[in-house]
């Protein structure tokens, strides 16, 4: 597809994200909300939809959803009710899903994503509502039956729907990244696409640039990662462009992303329009949430990644890149700040965290709070490097020993003899020795070849097993040969 065609059209994308909330129990019953148990081991008459049972809303599920909605700058609606969404599918034991139709928990929010030249773009969040997850169906290959596991049935799900504000697959990707990061800060969901705790459907249409009307959209499903969402949107954007260019019309339909083929494929379902016949859920009473409760939840929201990013830029003068990395994990950000308070050298601290610390975390698949390194120990190592007590090499060694043993930085430096020798008395005799052993090079330096000083410093370092302070060595050699 050439540049001209791509510029002729504008892409319009809206995203629907389903998020499993990590409550202890299901949304309407006391069954455990745990992933990975053996099939049908956490079901009860309520989530199996047996006659005569009644759902009761899990208070924590509502609180988590409100917390997420507030963090996404939404208004909590004064009147909240649940509705039945009726359809038949074997993963839905009741024949309906308890969801929300016209009085969702929250609406009118937004999330910021990065835009060109350091600015931000606001993506409007149309609504956020609570519903129950369905069970899991396994299609038994080669037989005429499907298998159903109802463990997931009744897991609290929050659906977050954007307006069609996104204009490219990259914006969609950035939105998902920021959404995930924000939700992880709140600790209300694991946001793990592979485990299905975060799922994303995308609506996409194209129109001629400048056209105020929206084109016919398709709905994309079955993407298993943020990268897959991006790839599916890119494929679909080109497919729609080609279709319009060759005079075809876009059919409104659901298309499945086929990861292996790298293509979206029409579901070719019977094109009867969905008719869910929503009506108010008679088994659940409505909810009117007190302003005081909303305020309490609002106050429990920690500083969010976008705010933290801005503050790190201005308070610690971190670069865009550094600030971004520091806020990718709330615990890493806190570790950074604790270090910066102990030793105000943010750039150096940042380098240590980005380099050795995050490498260790990734290698061990560990979490910051599981590490033996503390802000005290790390800043001790950095400070002693700045004070020339530790060479860069010795600092790395001290870091490794602290990580492995959990001993304090001071203890490790002492026990391993990592401190540099800066005592000029000792160093002078080493310098004497080196000059004696390398008369030729010493002569060259005397004649003005100053670049050879490094060679003698190297020799002296070898003699001291790397413990001498190379800066002092250099000074001593210069004074001795050039003065």
């Amino acid at each position: 597809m050439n540049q001209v065609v791509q510029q002729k059209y504008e892409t319009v994308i809206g995203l629907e994200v389903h998020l499993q909330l990590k409550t202890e129990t299901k949304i309407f019953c006391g069954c455990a909300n745990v992933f990975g148990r053996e099939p049908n081991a956490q079901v009860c008459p309520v989530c199996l939809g047996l006659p005569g049972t009644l759902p009761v809303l899990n208070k924590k599920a509502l609180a988590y959803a409100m917390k997420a909605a507030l963090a996404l700058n939404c208004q909590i609606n004064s009147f909240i009710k649940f509705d039945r969404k009726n359809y038949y599918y074997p993963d839905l034991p009741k024949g309906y899903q308890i969801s929300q139709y016209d009085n969702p928990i929250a609406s009118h929010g937004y999330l910021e994503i990065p835009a060109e030249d350091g600015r931000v773009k606001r993506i409007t969040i149309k609504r956020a509502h609570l519903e129950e997850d369905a069970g899991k169906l396994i299609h038994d290959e080669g037989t005429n039956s499907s298998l159903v596991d109802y463990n997931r049935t009744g897991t609290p799900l929050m659906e977050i729907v954007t307006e069609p504000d996104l204009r490219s697959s990259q914006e969609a990707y950035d939105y998902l990244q920021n959404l995930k990061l924000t939700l992880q800060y709140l600790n209300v969901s694991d946001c793990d696409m592979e485990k299905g705790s975060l799922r994303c459907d995308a609506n996409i249409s194209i129109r001629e640039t400048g056209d105020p009307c929206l084109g016919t959209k398709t709905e994309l499903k079955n993407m298993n990662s943020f990268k897959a969402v991006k790839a599916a949107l890119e494929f679909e954007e080109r497919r729609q462009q080609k279709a319009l260019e060759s005079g075809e019309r876009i059919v409104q339909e659901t298309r499945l992303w086929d990861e292996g083929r790298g293509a979206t494929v029409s579901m070719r379902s019977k094109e009867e329009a969905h008719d869910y016949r929503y009506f108010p859920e008679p088994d659940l009473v409505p909810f009117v949430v007190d302003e005081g409760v909303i305020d309490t939840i609002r106050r429990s929201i920690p500083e969010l990644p976008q705010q933290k990013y801005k503050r790190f830029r201005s308070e610690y003068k971190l670069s865009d890149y550094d600030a971004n990395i520091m806020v990718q994990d709330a615990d890493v950000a806190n570790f950074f700040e604790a270090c910066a308070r102990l030793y105000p050298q943010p750039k150096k601290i940042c380098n240590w965290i980005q380099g050795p610390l995050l490498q260790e975390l990734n290698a061990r698949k560990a979490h910051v709070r599981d590490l033996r390194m503390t802000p005290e120990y790390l800043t001790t190592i950095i400070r002693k490097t700045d004070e020339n007590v530790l060479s860069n090499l010795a600092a790395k060694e001290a870091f490794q020993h602290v990580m492995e043993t959990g001993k304090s930085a001071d203890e490790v430096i002492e026990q391993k003899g990592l401190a540099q020798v800066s005592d000029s008395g000792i160093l002078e005799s080493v310098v004497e020795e080196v000059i004696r052993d390398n008369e030729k090079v010493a002569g060259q330096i005397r004649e003005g070849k100053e670049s050879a000083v490094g060679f003698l410093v190297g020799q002296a370092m070898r003699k001291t097993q790397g413990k001498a302070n190379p800066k002092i060595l250099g000074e001593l050699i210069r004074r001795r040969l050039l003065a």
Partner: protein
Amino acid sequence: MIKTKGSKIVTQDDVRYIASLSRISLRDEEMARLTRNLEDILHYVRKLEEVDVRHIEPTSHVLPLKNVYREDRMRPSLTREDALQIAVQQHEGFFKVPKVIQ
């Protein structure tokens, strides 16, 4: 669905559609009888059109109750054996159903 007064409110097509949504198959005579029944019911309910509801909020619930919650505390689930007792067919701990591909 409610059209002008005097005309038929429910057609056989409406009933066929509702039956298909509900996964019910109807014989011709049942279709005719149910169309008449639904027609009668809706005519009866049509009385409500005489009430002026312009200033009344839509009612979703009739009970004078709100904010009924449960705490996020675990309660015992059924054993798998008990849960699967209601299964018409089962296979290795799963409920087994006729194949469905959406």
